[in-house]
């Protein structure tokens, strides 16, 4: 093990915590940064709430249902398909 030469960085504040959230959720923080981030959350109800909101945002975004195709567009795609088959089979 290399000796830890890096000075212990200061605790993070809220404004920094909100910028680390995606890296945290993606598992991309270093162990040291993750520890600092979690230590901040443990003492900060607002950032804890903020993290819950980011998770809820992701979940709600995942629940968006695609706009269904209009009948016209669906017919266009069926035409596209039939045209392709006709071309292919004609070759």
């Amino acid at each position, binding site marked *: 093990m290399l000796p830890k030469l890096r000075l212990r960085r200061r605790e993070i*504040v*809220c*404004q*920094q915590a*909100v*910028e680390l*959230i*995606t*890296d945290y959720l*993606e598992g*991309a923080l270093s162990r040291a940064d993750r520890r600092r981030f979690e230590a901040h959350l443990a003492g900060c109800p*607002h*950032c804890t*709430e*903020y993290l*819950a*909101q*980011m998770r*809820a*945002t*992701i979940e*709600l*975004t*995942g*629940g*968006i*249902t*695609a*706009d*269904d*195709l209009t009948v016209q*567009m*669906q017919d*266009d*795609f*069926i035409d*596209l*398909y*039939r045209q*392709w*088959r006709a071309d292919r089979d004609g070759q």
Partner: protein
Amino acid sequence: MDQEPDAELLARLRAGDERAFVTLVRRHHAAMLSLAAGYVPSMAVAEEVVQDTWLGVLRGIGGFEGRSSVRTWLFRILVNRARTAGVRERRSVAIGDAGPAVDRSRFDATGHWAVPPERWVEEADDRLDAAKLGGRLRSAINELPDRQREVVTLRDVEGLSSEEVCSVLEISEGNQRVLLHRGRSRLRQVLETELGRA
């Protein structure tokens, strides 16, 4: 039936099943259109790009080797075509340069919350019906800068993995995370404005 995996639909399509084609198109059309719109000057051109992509899928179907997921393959074809068709100078904001996740005015001089997040998570379920909230989120996604919209659409709407997104968009993991962070942060703010108790 609509839950049938993409790979099975593709196999049926390869065997000449027209309905499998329509199911695949319906499943991916909205995301493809949204993605294509980031490259071209109008929705009409984006629709052409998507149609052209599906034609490319039909023509290239024998070449799909299953090394990536079907949708990664689809989106990659789409992005290649959209980039070729893209005549618009992309409004690409430098990736690390898109502003903070939360407006600076909400923190005090020491970086602590001055205007803390309004609570809304509990309300998200029952305050608004899902369709209305979904519509609001969709328009918020459409208003994101192009690259953020692409990443959010692929990751959070379509559910691609970060590796798949990087592969489709040809960006690094680090850039993908920055774009995702900006996009998600913006959507959170929209939801707070929509649902918070202000």
